[in-house]
């Protein structure tokens, strides 16, 4: 078992087979630097719990194809990314820091899927982004492809 410590001083025990999906921790273990608790100063316990949940579920991912558990994993992934934008941001930053490739892919794809067909206004509101482009800069991009900003498929709702 490997012990991880979040930045709010909570400790979690994780099976080595699960935690080595993190390239960062795998390297630490290989270099013999994981003998005691591994502190993770960038990750809070709420986010770490989510990440560990993912690691435990994906522990036997290589075998999933053989045992027909692929659908089960897919369903888990869909449920897993069903979270708010702030939480998704925290999980992405944690996956980036721990270098968990598959989790990064899953989260970035989820972010892209949520942005599809959304209006600019809706994206800014959902992600709490203040527009800092000048009107000219904005218009320049719109003029390149005015059709991308209109049409019935553009979704202006915030959810």
């Amino acid at each position, binding site marked *: 078992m490997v012990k991880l410590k979040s930045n709010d001083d909570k400790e979690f025990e994780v099976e080595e087979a699960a935690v080595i999906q993190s390239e960062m921790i795998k390297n630490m273990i290989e270099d013999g630097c994981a003998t005691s608790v591994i502190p993770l100063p960038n990750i809070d316990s709420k986010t770490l719990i989510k990440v560990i949940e993912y690691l435990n579920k994906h522990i036997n991912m290589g075998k999933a194809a053989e045992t027909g558990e692929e659908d089960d994993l897919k369903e888990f992934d869909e449920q897993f990314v069903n979270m708010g*934008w*702030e939480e998704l*941001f925290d999980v*992405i930053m944690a996956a*980036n820091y721990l270098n968990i*490739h598959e989790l*990064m*892919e899953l989260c*970035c*794809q989820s*972010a*892209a*899927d949520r*942005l*599809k*067909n*959304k*209006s*600019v206004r809706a*994206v*800014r509101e959902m*992600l*709490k*982004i*203040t*527009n*800092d*482009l000048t009107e000219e*800069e*904005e218009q320049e*991009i*719109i003029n*390149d*492809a*005015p*059709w*991308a*900003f209109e*049409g*019935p*498929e553009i979704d202006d709702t915030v959810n």
Partner: protein
Amino acid sequence: MEDSDKLWSDRIPPDILGSIASRLVVGEYFVFRVVCKQWRLAPLMPPSHRPRRLHDDLQLPYLMTLHEKTGIVEFFDPVYNVVTTHNPGISKLKGSRIRSSKAGWLLMESWQSRVDISTFSAKSII
């Protein structure tokens, strides 16, 4: 969390933003670039499951289908296996046919006039 308003504009690293932007196709990418300065500058990256090669910097081709009667355009992205439909059609393209394509431009023929149109930015020279 403090400063939660700037999570997705200032605190998100550019390479992660680029990884998200790279999964968008055609029109979605234009919308992405108008959101704010950081998003406009996000670097586009090749999908990470492919080995990085020198020519990855080149723009990959889309397969474009134009529906003659409606002017609806479909783009098929062979890398992500995604079809993006531009619906409703571009009215100018109704009744047009694609005759040839080169260097990101299409030579179009319609009963009204000849139109050269750039596939990516939909600029046209009539």
